[in-house]
């Protein structure tokens, strides 16, 4: 029966190719949208993951960096520095802003770093230096390309020109672009004291247990939220994931409906074409269940080929887009791909219902008509 299903499908290779392509593209849509959010998650936590600070301090009630606001008064940082086990604390300021060059503008997060600080700035510098003084800025090399600027050029931020003194890597993502400026300058812009911070990066003394230190800091600093690096990164990832879950679900439903209709149209048409042959099989004693298996077989073969093609195209699209537009990282999770298989199987089964019922109502006498 499966051989018959295969023959029916491949009888018209062009139609089969178009149909498989349609199914594949529906799957590409599903995988790409999920991949965009997965990529956004990675970019959103790049700063937290790459800074060498096992413990992070932030305002009480804050547990995210992305799309968030936090304020730590200078005296709290001073208090934190006195805690036994703390080697040093680096405070950074964090705000949003538009990086402008001519008519081009990119919304990003602006991080104010102390030029003397060892950490808190860009973790991968490809050109120039990374300690911005007043009216200086470090941006991602890909962002510079997008804005058409180079080292030594000026970028406008908050209506002030900033000279690009360094180009970094890994800071340019959709909705997560980072730029580094002088902390003193940013504090003036944000109307806070220069020693205040949005987030503080804590490095423990060598050999000190990080878990114990974090717990102790939390109990001694009730006005702050103390988070370990992995926990902080996970919190931001979870935020992005929760933002994406409903939109992914909505798009998936639409894409599955399209996939269902494409499979249904293909199989239904193939069934109509072979009406006489099915009638002949019925006349020879094949029951409806066996013929339904043929129909289902065609649907499953189309779906399987569509899935294989779709996965391949999705990975290809993801690679191509990320190459052309590095800020749009599309990460396709193999586990997520596997999760789509049972759903596609159900969709395929549904798509086969109409053609199967057509065959069930077929009069075997059709085999003998002229």
């Amino acid at each position, binding site marked *: 029966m499966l051989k018959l299903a295969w023959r029916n499908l491949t009888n018209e290779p062009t139609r089969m190719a178009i149909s498989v392509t349609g199914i594949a593209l529906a799957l590409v849509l599903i995988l790409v949208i999920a991949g965009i959010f997965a990529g956004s998650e990675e970019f959103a936590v790049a700063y937290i993951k790459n800074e060498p600070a096992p413990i992070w301090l932030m305002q009480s009630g804050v547990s995210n960096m992305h*799309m968030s606001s936090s304020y730590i008064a200078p005296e709290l940082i001073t208090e934190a520095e006195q805690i036994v086990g703390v080697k040093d604390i680096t405070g950074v300021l964090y705000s949003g802003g538009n990086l402008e060059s001519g008519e081009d503008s990119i919304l990003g997060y602006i991080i104010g770093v102390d030029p003397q600080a060892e950490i808190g700035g860009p973790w991968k510098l490809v050109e120039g230096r990374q300690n911005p003084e007043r009216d200086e800025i470090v941006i991602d090399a890909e962002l510079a390309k997008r804005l058409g600027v180079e080292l030594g050029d000026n970028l406008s931020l908050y209506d002030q020109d900033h000279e690009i003194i360094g180009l970094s890597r890994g800071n340019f993502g959709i909705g997560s672009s980072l730029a580094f400026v002088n902390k003193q300058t940013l504090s003036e812009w944000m109307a806070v004291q220069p020693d205040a911070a949005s987030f503080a990066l804590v490095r423990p003394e060598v050999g000190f247990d990080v878990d114990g230190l974090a717990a102790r800091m939390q109990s001694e600093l009730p006005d702050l939220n103390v988070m370990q690096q992995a926990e902080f990164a996970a919190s931001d990832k979870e935020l992005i994931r929760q933002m994406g879950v409903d939109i992914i679900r909505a798009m998936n439903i639409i894409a599955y409906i*399209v996939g269902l209709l494409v499979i249904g149209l293909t199989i239904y048409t193939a069934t109509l074409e072979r009406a006489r042959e099915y009638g002949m099989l019925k006349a020879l004693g094949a029951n409806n269940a066996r013929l339904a298996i043929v129909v289902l077989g065609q649907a499953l073969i189309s779906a399987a080929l569509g899935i294989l093609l779709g996965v391949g195209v999705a990975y290809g699209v993801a690679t191509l887009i990320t190459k052309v537009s590095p800020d749009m990282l599309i990460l396709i999770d193999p586990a997520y791909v596997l999760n789509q298989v049972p759903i596609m199987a159900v969709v395929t089964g549904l798509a086969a219902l109409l053609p199967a019922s057509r065959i069930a109502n077929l009069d075997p006498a059709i085999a003998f008509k002229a």
Partner: protein
Amino acid sequence: MTVPIARRNAFFQKGKLVLSVSSIGASLAMILLLMGFREGLYSALTAYVDNLDVDLVATQSGNEGVVSANSVLPGDIHTELEELAGAREAGHIAVAGVIFTVDEDKSPIVLVGYEPDSGLGDPWNLGEGGYLEQDNEILLDTWLAQRSRIRIGDTVEVLGREFEVVGLTRGTASWMAPYAFVTLPAAQEALGLVDSVSYHLLRLNDGANLDAAKEAIETQYPNVKAIQPDQIADTDRRAIAAVMDRPINVLLFVAVIIGVAVMALTSYTSIMDRLREYGLLKAVGAKPLRLNVVVLQESLLNSFLGLIIGVALAYSSAALIMAQWPQFNVTILPDSVWKIAVLGLIMTLLAAILPIRRLDRIDVLDVFKA
């Protein structure tokens, strides 16, 4: 008398017609929904500014958005700004992006601190409950409250401070960041804005010269920009578009290719079904151009019917999506429908290439085969 071959071909098999037209409709609906999602996202984001009902907003120079920027201005220039502008009413607000967390659920929100007595900057549509009276009260968006299972009278935490929910607003939902409202002093305290605000709001006298008011303010305070609310909305839209347009365009591109594939499948299937008949027409002298026109006519008819279904499906799906997921504002503009119609026409022409080429290769001798 000419025979309407295209129409007869299309309507001969009702089941196939329904599937074909539904597939095309679903593909076009998918494109319309993506466009509607993009449009709705921007209008939801700028809802607060669009409903501000003031003539001028004084903002920090270089920070001319609400959602996309972090403006900070001294609070004590309020009276002077009012005098310079010749305003009859003035108020100020504090605005910042924060993360609203309830149990494990996280939502980015735009927190607005306004002065309840001023009548400026307050929510424009209170669905349930009352307005703010105390500093420990908060107004939440209705969708956000439902999602977090919060009711009026409940206590929530924002930036480490507790607030009692006294009202639920409408028109403030957004997938990216719904709005929440507290009093200005509460926002200043939570955000660490000592004697600072984000924006000054000005209502001028009837017939006042807007440009003169702007110039007076900006001359006196070079770091202040006096702009109209629609300019702020425009800045926000452009900033978010720079982030969101590219991933949405990737999805739109894939959706368009799906649509072309579905249309090609429909047209090709129709040709293959009628291969002998077309061969017969060729045998009795029909020119290739005439046959191509028939194919095009049938494709256009299917696409036209698909467009009608697609538009209806898009509007009803948009209503369903917004009912199920109120944080999504799917706005399908009449302009988008026209664009889809034109796009559908182009897609139909592209999709007809393959079937037309197949038609050109028909051997008239096929007509006489058993």
